[in-house]
């Protein structure tokens, strides 16, 4: 049956990275590297720009990396990136604020300021995977499977986009909470994108 199907998903929390129901990376408290760097190394990713990203972008980027799983640098004209979170770029905003707070040490940092917009996450994903459809970021008070489902379905119903990468990407006060999805319009025997199916993955 044709419809918007969940092709792959990735759930990242403070404890682990879950991909297709398996824990593929587990947080190692003894490792000196911060958690997101542990994931980057464990998945053997080579993308030097990663180290310039703020925590929100690193977290969302890693989730997208897992679900897209495609190194081809061809333009993906009919793909889109749609992300959601609660705290916007507040984690990086706080870092940027430190660079301007003190009149005696006033050095506004451009490489930090550039990440003080939550949609940079969708931009980084679009750049990495050459996604040339829509890229957009929404803010909701809490994780909302309903809003995610609505946004993805509305976008696909315009008829131009057949694949969407996105979902929830939150990084706040040291905590990671990501559910990245790759959904596609096709007839494959995969789970339909529904509110309940999204919730099941969120609760994994």
């Amino acid at each position, binding site marked *: 049956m044709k419809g918007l199907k969940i092709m792959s998903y990735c759930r990242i929390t403070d404890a682990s990275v879950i991909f297709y129901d398996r824990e593929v990376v587990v947080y190692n408290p003894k490792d000196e590297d911060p958690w997101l760097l542990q994931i980057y190394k464990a998945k053997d990713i080579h993308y*030097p720009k990663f*180290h*310039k990203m703020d925590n929100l972008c690193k977290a969302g980027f890693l989730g997208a990396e897992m679900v897209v799983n495609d190194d081809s640098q061809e333009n993906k004209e009919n793909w889109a990136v749609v992300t959601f979170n609660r705290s916007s770029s507040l984690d990086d905003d706080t870092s940027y604020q430190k660079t301007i707070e003190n009149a005696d040490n006033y*050095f*506004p*940092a*451009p*490489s930090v300021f*550039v990440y003080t917009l939550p949609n940079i996450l969708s931009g980084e994903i679009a750049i990495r995977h050459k996604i040339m459809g829509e890229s957009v970021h929404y803010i909701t008070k809490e994780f909302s499977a309903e809003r995610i489902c609505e946004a993805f379905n509305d976008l696909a119903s315009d008829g131009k986009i057949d694949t969407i990468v996105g979902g929830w990407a939150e990084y706040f006060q040291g905590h990671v909470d990501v559910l990245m999805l790759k959904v596609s319009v096709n007839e494959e025997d995969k789970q339909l994108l529904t509110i309940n199916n999204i919730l099941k993955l969120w609760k994994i």
Partner: protein
Amino acid sequence: MEDLVLELKKKIIEVLNLEEVKPEDINENAPLFGEGLGLDSIDALELIVLMEKDYGIKLANAAAGRDVFKSVKTMADYITANRTK
């Protein structure tokens, strides 16, 4: 001068988050932008901040930095000639 060159390499790596690069990997005469380290416009802006913060040199804009930031060596020469810190 050698100390300054090494110091600059370390600072560039730190300030520009070049985590996968070591000071030994940077040739002091190699271009910083374009090829070589492949730095971009935001990196150029951060180097402008670095010049002011650590060496007291104010550059008006990225264009003014173009010649200064050609390589680590040109940066070191410029700093030696103009530093106020």
